[in-house]
């Protein structure tokens, strides 16, 4: 497969300069790298600018409800675990509206890859604070600045035992595509939080702001992503320096392993024409 096979005919509705373009390109590169056919790849999304991404790539797409991409993705993966399932979501969709699903799907550990386009602001609703907006940031609603502590998704994911926790930067598409490739290859739930400037509504966390701060954590050969305590410290780093890269990784049993899904037919391949329940009815005698 080459990158042209992934070209969608749908017209892109993002603002010029949106960080989502870099994420889209990184997704395409990663899919070329893993070399699966578009028919075997499913993108699932909720609502927000990030959720439109699946339309701009030629793979299967289920664009569902705000906050509910994860359960839909997990349902699809359980029904057909041969699909490579990727969720594209945002800081509002995944960390706000769908927060409960994030918690429990990290626990569930179904083999899906979740890419959170984290621009630290609500774009589609025009500029309100998101769960990751920095303290003090003023918006039309948070007129005196944000007073809620920002959610720390990477720390949270590590604490919950997520087996693959990474942070990318949308302007570094090459690095991000490596993270997405690794996330897809990782067996189990992979969370990739992507720093993404919003050119329309986030006047603080801009390209310039990030360019001064981000550094690649894996460039340091001594950094061990399997060291949970070190990973937790790294995940908490936010200010003058912001680490990107594979922060934490731990192989663990997936939902599919624990369910023994690989030992039986795909649910969608079961012949259901004539389910014989006579024995079961007999048990009600």
């Amino acid at each position, binding site marked *: 497969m080459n990158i042209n096979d992934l070209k969608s005919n*749908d017209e892109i*509705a993002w603002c010029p300069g949106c960080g989502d373009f870099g994420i889209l390109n990184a997704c395409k590169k990663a899919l070329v790298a893993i070399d699966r056919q*578009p*028919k*075997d790849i*499913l993108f*699932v999304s909720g*609502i927000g600018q990030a959720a*439109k991404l*699946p*339309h701009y790539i*030629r*793979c*299967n*797409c*289920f*664009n*569902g*409800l705000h906050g*509910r991409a*994860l*359960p*839909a*993705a*997990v*349902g*699809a*993966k*359980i*029904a*057909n675990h*041969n*699909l490579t399932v990727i969720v594209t979501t945002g800081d509002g969709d995944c960390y706000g509206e769908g927060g*409960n*699903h994030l*918690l*429990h799907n990290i626990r569930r550990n179904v083999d899906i890859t979740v890419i959170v386009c984290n621009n630290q602001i609500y774009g589609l609703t025009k500029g309100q604070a998101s769960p990751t907006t920095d303290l003090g940031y003023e918006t039309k609603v948070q007129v005196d600045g944000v007073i809620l502590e920002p959610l720390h998704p990477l720390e949270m994911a590590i604490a919950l035992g997520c087996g693959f926790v990474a942070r990318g930067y949308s302007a570094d598409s090459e690095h991000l595509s490596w993270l997405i490739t690794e996330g897809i290859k990782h067996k189990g739930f992979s969370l990739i939080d992507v720093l993404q400037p919003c050119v329309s509504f986030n006047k603080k966390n801009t390209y310039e702001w990030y360019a001064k701060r981000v550094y690649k954590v894996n460039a340091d050969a001594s950094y061990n992503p399997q060291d949970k305590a070190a990973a937790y410290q790294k995940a908490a780093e936010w200010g003058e320096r912001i680490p990107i890269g594979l922060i934490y990784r731990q192989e663990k049993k997936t939902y599919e392993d624990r*369910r023994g*899904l690989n030992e*039986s*037919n795909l*649910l*969608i*391949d*079961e012949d*259901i*024409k*004539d*389910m014989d*329940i*006579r024995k*079961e*009815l007999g048990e*009600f*005698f």
Partner: protein
Amino acid sequence: MDEGITIKIAGQAGQGIQTIGAALCNIFKRSGLHIFASQDYMSRIRGGNNFFQLRVSGKPISTLRQKSDITAALDKESVQLHRNDVASGGIIVFDKAKFNFSGQDNLLFDVPFYSLANAIGESDIFINSVCCGAVAGLARINPDYLELVIRDLFAEKDEEIISKNVKAAQAGYNFARDNFKDDKFKVAPAPAGKNLLMNGNDAIALGAIRAGCKFYSAYPMSPSTGIMNVVAHYANRFNIIVEQAEDEIAAINMVIGASFAGARSMTATSGGGLALMVEGLSLAAMTETPVVVVDAQRPAPATGFPTRTEQADLNFLIHAGHGEFAKVIYAPGTIQEAFYLTVKAFNIAEKYQIPVLIMTDQHLADSLQDIEGFDLNKAGVRRFIISKEDSKKISGYKRYQLTDSGISPRAIPSWIEDVIYADSDEHNEEGHITEEAQMRIQMVKKRFYRKMAGLAQETEKPTVYNAEKAQTLLLGFGSTYGVLKETCEVLGKDFGFVHLSQVWPFPSLELSPLLKNKKNVLTVENNAGSQLAGLLMRETGIKANRSILRYDGRPFNPDYLIEQIKAEQIK
């Protein structure tokens, strides 16, 4: 009403009332008798007052009576709570010594549950078996069945425990037989039946398995949880995945995801959980993804009565889901209907690519009844997807291709070479987001008008009883079927009924000719708002004369309904 007896076992939660009740159901069923049983339980794990009511008859029955002939009271409070519901000539079986009761009370038949239990097993835990035996003794049931059922019930325990329970049951049986000389509770034995014993939840679970449900996700909520338990019990045999969701929103969205991927999928909940699923129903409609959703109703608003019954979600379900789209709501009246309509729900959901709801309530969900088996030939799976084989021939696939029927051929991801786009936003035929006005009109017609037109051909016909000759027609839906039937049988030729097991699309065409020119049309509803009467008016212009309502969280029974009809001076 017919001969036969009504038995009540009353006591605190945790005293084993349900175990005794279930054992008695089995004993009577094996004796060739028909039974209908329901549990009245409080939302607590210990204490309170719960009861299990069991009606036994030589004829098939599908409803309870108001009053009981035999009431076994396992604590003192039960004697007071239930004495007003003792039938004329009825008794309360009670251990006077245990509860230090020395007064005179003609209703009481003293059975020393505790001393009999301790004499055999040196433990109070055997009182359940003693009680079970005592009731069987009063009904003069063949004691062989008693031993058989007790052995079955404790099959997983050691032989010592089993034989002590058998002896305890026999002691109760002998005591009742020897000390209660009157044969008035004797029920005529019949040839041992082959009937099955199950409740509405069991029937729905079995229907789902029969229909090829492969993915079930739900959040536990009374009174729907029994469905999940039964599906889970058989899940490994049938390669079904049962996933307990973190909340009802997750449940329905997982189900939609699994269904989109190609597995027949289902969820069940009660009103409060359904409230959380409502956005999901509209997602299923918009993305044209088949789902089956059960609402086992309980009294609301909010938490309401978690373990009791009501039919007040009718309007809610009809309107559940923002926007306009086609859906179907079944309201099975019997355990058989619960089974067949579950299979139909899966077929119709897949054919029309819509959400289909099954509305039950605690009364149908939890009531045990003996039924003849199911005719599996009438519960066949019909598939409406592009088969794996045919998928190879597809190219240029459009998920939402416009058709006269409103139904677009549904392909399964990865079976076809093309990719599939599904969207909750308004979309074009390819499934990409659009805001184009003409496309919007086409898509609304597709999801709403055209599918509704198709569904008009699929209506589940109302059940009709003596509708032509009757002056007064009772109209009900869902779990009241048995009550309507027995009430009309008792009231005679001037009364008939029409029962709806499909409430949406409303069966106006079928209903109007039946109700026209009737002297009285009375809706019978387990709610306070005459919701069915309102729906009837809105959909057919026919005004019901009156509604007989019950909204105390308890099910109707024929005695109650007849009393209400008489009080209204309806003839």
